């Protein structure tokens, strides 16, 4: 069984294997197809129309399926690789080893936000930004540039304490666990981390930055942690909801997987620790 680990615990060999698998997917063009898919969903998921990947109950099962597909692509390159997660309540500064040159590289330079260290720096020639919303073809970051700090453990715990998965109107205005985790309401967890990183991570083409996968892996873990804390709380809604993916509806773009199918992650992988 594949085990997803906290990135802070990876050995240098594990870090190298993960980075090399990313670079191989990038070279083959497979990486960019994930960026394209994500952008298509995030720019069409709307509060008053069809919504599958974001601002809706299926935010969590959709990204779980998306991450599994990406992890399988990595494993087709190197079967030893699993997605690491970034616990941003713990590794909360730009000085974290996650941003070191032997892993993701650091923040962008002040001139133009260009990442200049690590394997994804434009100067490496290995990480052109092809799926983009503007003319810049280099990876950008501005770690902490937005001014608001990363969410704290106490803020995470306040969201994990919410007993109801989601509520009407099942969009960015909803009360409940999903929307507070996604971040459109309340303390704002997931959205705030995208903004803290800045650069492509703040845009519709956020998976251009490999940290996207480590961030969403932690969001996925928080869903599993919430399930463990609330064994009697299930996915909502369960049926007959316009524009929204109900428990047994299938999700685009796969059309063969429902939220119900994604509820138990242990069929696919486990996490190194459970909260």
């Amino acid at each position: 069984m594949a085990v997803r680990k906290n990135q802070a615990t990876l050995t240098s060999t594990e870090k190298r294997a993960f980075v090399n698998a990313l670079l191989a997917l990038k070279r083959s063009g497979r990486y960019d197809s994930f960026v394209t898919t994500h952008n298509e969903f995030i720019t069409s998921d709307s509060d008053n129309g069809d919504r599958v990947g974001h601002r809706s109950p299926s935010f969590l099962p959709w990204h779980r399926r998306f991450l599994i597909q990406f992890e399988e692509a990595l494993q087709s390159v190197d079967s030893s690789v699993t997605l690491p997660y970034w616990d941003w309540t713990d590794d909360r500064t730009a000085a974290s080893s996650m941003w070191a040159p032997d892993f993701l590289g650091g923040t962008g330079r002040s001139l133009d936000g260009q990442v200049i260290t690590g394997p994804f720096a434009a100067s490496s020639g290995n990480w052109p930004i092809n799926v983009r919303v503007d003319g810049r073809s280099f990876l950008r970051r501005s770690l902490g540039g937005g001014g608001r700090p990363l969410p704290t453990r106490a803020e995470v715990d306040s969201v994990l304490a919410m007993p109801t998965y989601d509520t009407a109107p099942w969009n960015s205005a909803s009360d409940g666990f999903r929307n507070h985790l996604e971040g459109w309401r309340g303390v704002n967890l997931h959205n705030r981390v995208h903004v803290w990183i800045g650069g492509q991570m703040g845009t519709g083409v956020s998976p251009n930055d490999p940290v996207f996968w480590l961030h969403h892996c932690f969001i996925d873990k928080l869903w599993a942690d919430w399930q463990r804390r609330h064994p009697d709380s299930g996915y909502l809604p369960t049926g007959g909801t316009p524009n929204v993916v109900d428990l047994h509806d299938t999700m685009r773009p796969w059309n063969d997987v429902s939220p119900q199918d994604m509820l138990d992650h242990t069929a696919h992988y486990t996490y190194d620790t459970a909260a």
Partner: protein
Amino acid sequence: MSDISRRRVLRGAAIAVAGVAMAAPAAIAAQSAVAGAGGSGHPTGHGDHTRPEAFDEVYRGRRIQGMPIPVEGRGHTGRTGHSPHMAHEGPGYAVFVDGEELHVMRNADSSWISVVNHYETFRTPRALARAAVDELQGAVLVPMA
């Protein structure tokens, strides 16, 4: 309508507005008021969904414009959405930076996001356009491949 053809139409709208300069705002304001009154059928119904008035200004050397446009997909009801491109109603408002469309969306609480600032909300399209200019640092918006 495909995204590309829609974009061309919108580009045309931007040029048209630019061309009529000072004659346009009154007509656009009237259209905006009508759109606001007719826009109450949204199931989400939160916040003030009156479409904002048009704007046209130069911010940090970039021309930013915003204007109400006809809403796409009127009459669409429920879940036919097997294509990500046909399932949504647009916000009824378009924003441009130096004539290139900035993809924008409106949230249920009536705040705004764009493809450049997708995880952070702004109270008005003008604030959204200015944030995009700050983020672009001189770069040009490009159509999605």
